[in-house]
């Protein structure tokens, strides 16, 4: 890439423009694949597509996966615990946003 190309290059917004495969999501978050499969089965993250090889992770999956992994690693939560914690954290964030309006 030339210097001019580099300075014009617009990096893609992951949540809008990119659908990550299982492998890409695992690389991006540095998480083992079997862990992500477990979270999908638990409904922590919801990919498009039926089979793991067809899964595409869009929208907030990247953020949710990163938080899920930190909670799993740091607090040793299991998948249902992570699922509950993420839902509650989302609810708290929504309520705080309401307060700020």
């Amino acid at each position, binding site marked *: 890439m030339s210097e001019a190309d580099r300075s014009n290059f617009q*990096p893609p917004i992951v949540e809008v423009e990119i659908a990550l495969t299982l492998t890409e999501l695992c690389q991006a978050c540095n998480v083992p694949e079997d862990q992500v499969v477990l979270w999908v089965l638990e409904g922590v993250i919801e990919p498009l597509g039926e089979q793991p090889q067809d899964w595409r992770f869009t929208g907030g999956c990247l953020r949710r996966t990163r938080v899920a992994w930190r909670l799993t690693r740091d607090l040793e939560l299991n998948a249902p615990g992570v699922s509950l914690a993420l839902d509650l954290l989302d609810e708290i964030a929504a309520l705080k946003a309401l307060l700020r309006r």
Partner: protein
Amino acid sequence: MKFKDYYQTLGVERNSTQDDIKRAYRKLARKYHPDVSKSADAEARFKEVGEAYAVLKDPEKRVAYDQMGSQWQAGQDFQPPPGWDAGFEFSGADFAAGDGAEFSDFFEALFGRQGRRARSHRAGAHARGQDHHARVLIDLKDAYHGARRSFSLRVPSLDAQGHVAVEERKLDVNIPKGIRAGQHLRLTGQGAPGYGQGPAGDLYLEIAFNPDPLFRIDDRDVYLDVPLAPWEAALGKVVTVPTPEGSVQLTIPPRSAAARKLRLKGKGIPGNPPGDLYAVLAIVLPPADNERARQAWRTLAQAFEFDPRAHFKGGLS
């Protein structure tokens, strides 16, 4: 270097059992976890607690730490005595919790060689470099117009001896118009270098907004408080209000109440669909600090048969 009292950090006695230590750690980790706690020092506290636990949960490290004696106080100037760890055999196992984390100089001095190892890769193996993440702050107007921004990122890396060094690097990034807080930009090949002939990893930048003195942001919608004098709210008025795209004329309808939200459709963060901008009305009383002003309020009182507490009447005894 200051001595760190890992027992004090976890709030346990020196003779606590491994179970006590685990329980104390879990409790503090839940309290200070940066994803859970929003207090400003949560991340620093969480790191301290993690470092203390990394030492005390491991019987080998705990014994080595203990044999320095209990005469040390937290914060006291400290140098490890020469050969302090002689005769201890470290397995160097189970260091997932410290993986990539930045532990203190104190920890490094004691456990640096055993605790951290530069990742060894088989000679000749080719592997893709790790993906990295960083959080960056932009201004609200950058999301309205797009912008080229320069960020300086701190990158921790392990040298051959396993010591952590923090390098700083500058990065110029084009911020796309319409980006919102919490979204990520992917910079291909800007993560960790690959091993052997392997490609470099990617860098993900998580976007957050600098606090704005005027505007509050909720996803793609933007909120602005618009203060009004009581007569402006009562009679209506066309007022000039700022937006991130420049000033607009806003019509305040007559008889507007405080906290009423007027929507400027599509004037939030651009996108498909764009967000909205909400003007939140607030009524501000002019100070009644001179006789002329007080007389004006009295005249106003006489002009109205107004009891703002009429609904209390039924309840008064």
